[in-house]
């Protein structure tokens, strides 16, 4: 194990009686990375997060958080956490709730007086500061939970389904906060089923299944990777066989319809050249559209439609 990663696990395993929740987890999350942790229900995502935060003890394997063995209370002073099932002391009001958690982080009174109102404002709850949490909606609880996770200006934040109870405005807020955290160099460990959100916010994602990492992808790789191209042209009157042979220099899986051409290109760098070549062949070019595989398509492709453990 090296101290260069914010989160690092090696052969991490968790069994509950006869059930294996996490089989063999190997992860490395770099500092300042916005990291997406994806997998079907029951794949072991929440259990993995619980182990990293010291809430559940691994059956075997090793893990470090901020260079310290997991479970070390001191390393948790630089960790923020929004649980999946956000249940808080609902007899406290928003301000009291944040003040309590700030005290547990060890913030002194001056810092608390500054941080608590600022975070309530950041998550759009400043007008509800004196309202009891039991009167909060699901979305409001998620917002105040998010504020709680940021009280200590953490080096790493674990967000377990942070947008599940939020409306579109709330989701945009969370997205903005994640961007701010990235700009500040904070590592964000995001577990979410909303893949469109993950696609927008994350630098890298891993897919886990049966408690094991099956694929790790940098989101940039998706943008710069193999691209399905759809070309709309006038009627294909030219020699189709010759056209197919010519298109093969740009990519594979060439398919010609009446007025459309489909092909798979290894990347997008040759797109302008392809356009020039098509025009050079005397074709009327109406549209040339690259399609990336969405994260959702990749998810289905990698994880499949079956559930986890």
């Amino acid at each position, binding site marked *: 194990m090296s101290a260069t990663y914010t989160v690092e696990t090696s052969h991490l395993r968790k069994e509950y009686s006869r059930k294996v929740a996490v089989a063999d987890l190997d992860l490395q999350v770099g500092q300042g990375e916005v990291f997406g942790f994806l997998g079907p229900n029951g794949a072991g995502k929440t259990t993995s997060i619980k182990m990293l935060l010291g809430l559940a003890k691994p059956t075997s394997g090793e893990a470090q958080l901020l260079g310290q063995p997991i479970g070390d*209370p001191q390393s*948790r002073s630089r960790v923020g*956490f929004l*649980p999946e099932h956000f249940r808080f002391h609902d*007899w*406290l009001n928003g301000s009291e709730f944040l003040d309590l*958690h700030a005290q*547990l982080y*060890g913030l002194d009174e001056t810092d608390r007086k500054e941080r608590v109102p600022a975070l309530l404002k950041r998550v759009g709850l400043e007008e509800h500061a004196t309202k009891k949490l039991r009167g909060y909606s699901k979305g409001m609880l998620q917002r105040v939970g998010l504020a*709680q996770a940021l009280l200590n200006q953490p080096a790493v934040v674990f967000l377990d389904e942070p947008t599940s109870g939020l409306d579109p405005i709330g989701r945009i807020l969370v997205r903005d906060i994640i961007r701010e955290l990235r700009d500040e160099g904070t590592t964000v460990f995001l577990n979410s089923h909303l893949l469109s959100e993950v696609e927008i916010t994350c630098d890298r994602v891993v897919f886990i299944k049966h408690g094991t990492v099956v694929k790790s992808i940098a989101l940039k790789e998706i943008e710069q990777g193999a691209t399905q191209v759809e070309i709309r042209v006038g009627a294909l009157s030219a020699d189709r066989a010759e056209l197919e042979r010519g298109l093969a220099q740009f990519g594979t899986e060439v398919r010609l319809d009446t007025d459309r051409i489909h092909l798979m290109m290894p990347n997008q760098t040759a797109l302008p050249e392809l356009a020039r070549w098509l025009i050079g062949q005397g074709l009327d070019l109406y549209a040339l559209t690259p399609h990336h595989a969405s994260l959702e398509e990749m998810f289905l492709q990698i994880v499949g439609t079956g559930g986890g453990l």
Partner: protein
Amino acid sequence: MKSVVVMFKLTLREAARRKVLWGLLILSVLFLVLYALGLSFIQDEIARFGVRPSASRNGFDLKTGYSFLATFALYAANFLIVLLAVLIPMDTLAGEIGSGTIQSLAVKPLRRSQIVLGKWLGFVLLLGACTLLLVGGTVAITAAITGYVLPNAALGWGAMMLEALVFLSVSFLGGTRLSTLANGVLGFGLFIVAFIGGFIGAFGTLIGSNAAIKIGDIVSLVMPSEMVWRAALSEMAEGINPLRYMLLGQGTPDATILIYAVIYAAVILLLALVSFQRRDL
């Protein structure tokens, strides 16, 4: 230490917000008002008619009567304390573990033992104050109305407090592994077992049954709460106090049961700390 204080304050604040504190206060005051009223009526009757000659012939004097009334009131208060010591803390760990509330606390930079200790100390203060109010109030009302001062009342308070601590620790240990309901059942179950065991032991001293006495002793080792109270009663009861004979028979509890109960409560609390530390949340 700072985190323990935060959890301690949180426990007290929760008791106040959830109206547990006010419930305790109202219940205690109601108990004392009822006792004061009852004692006043009895005192009026005694002033008017005196003690019956037949009772006097049996050695039952005024002092014994007052001792019986005061200790009986404390006996009832003891039930109330046990009830509170089981009911109030039974949800504090079990409920927060069950709902997941504990997660956002346990990921903070503090040891789990600090969460348990802070909460435990909060309940100690609540139960201590409630016990002091009930015992102090009973003794003060008795003295004010009858002029009789119960001997060793401080020991009575200490014993009831110790009994409360035993149940509090048991409730904390149960709360680390059981649901709220199961934890409550455990607390009351142990109380009933100790209560019956105490009676079997007392009855054994009356009929001279060593087997019954032994059963009482074994039960007091499993759950010393009842014997703690009975040990205090033997020090407080004066004359031919009927309650003494009802609860103790011919026997006098060994004072070492108090030391045993202190060790018992400490060990159970320690087990609660270890159990909470080791469990997944």
